[in-house]
């Protein structure tokens, strides 16, 4: 099992995601950039991809819309730099929260033996917008309960 490690230190505007894949780097990179393949895995479960434009080249842009019975969720951004098999630097914006743009850098490390490690580093403009992203869908006032459950699960 390849676990996803997510780090979001309190008081910082960063989110770091590290995940390994049982596939060579070239394939992971292709799955990450090929507009025929990306919609097969990107986005939350149970949502349909309504629109999808994805031009993963330096200066290219992307725009996609997920939909469920409650509504539509649109995302967009531009690719600042794309180094084949190694690196993608892009902006990310949820159109429901306009101008809360984050910068995301995805690095692909060849681990040998047909395995690849992905490291995504996201930088938000404020700690608050980072927290809002992490807590999306969460209500206020549950931090205490969360800490209690954290303790429970840590046993």
């Amino acid at each position, binding site marked *: 099992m390849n676990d996803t490690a997510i780090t979001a230190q309190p008081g910082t505007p960063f989110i770091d995601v590290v995940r390994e894949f049982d596939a060579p780097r070239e394939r992971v990179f292709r799955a990450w950039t090929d507009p025929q393949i990306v919609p097969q*895995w990107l986005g939350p479960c149970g949502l349909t991809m309504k629109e999808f434009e994805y031009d993963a080249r330096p200066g290219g842009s992307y725009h996609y819309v997920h939909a469920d019975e409650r509504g539509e969720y649109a995302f967009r951004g531009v690719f600042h730099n794309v180094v084949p098999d190694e690196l993608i630097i892009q902006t990310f914006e949820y159109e429901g929260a306009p101008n809360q743009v984050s910068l995301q850098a995805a690095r692909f490390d060849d681990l040998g033996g047909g395995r690849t490690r992905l490291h995504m580093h996201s930088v938000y403009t404020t700690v608050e917008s980072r927290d809002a992203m992490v807590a999306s869908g969460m209500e206020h006032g549950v931090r205490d309960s969360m800490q209690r459950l954290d303790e*429970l699960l840590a046993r």
Partner: protein
Amino acid sequence: MTIDEAEERLDRAFAALGDPVRRAMIARLSRGEATVNELAEPFAITKQAVSRHIHVLEAAGLITRSRDAQRRPCHLNAAALEELTSWIDKYRLEAERRFRRLDEVLESMKEQEK
């Protein structure tokens, strides 16, 4: 289930987990079913108190008890706990689901490359 009902259920679950004895019971049940006596063992509290804790956990939907067996062992309702943790850790869960789909996509790409 409406959003309000879901909220109420979460409130009950969190309230039930706001007690160290009940958390320890959940932790014990995560390793397998247990009878009331087995659950009571680590605590210096009365059997009545243990029964009350079990009732709270049951009412919160976190555990179930077998109806038929004489021992009436308690079971963890793993789905309810998962719902709780997934609600809390929605971001992590979404990322993990996405990456598992990517795992499958990578596997199918491998087939096509052959």
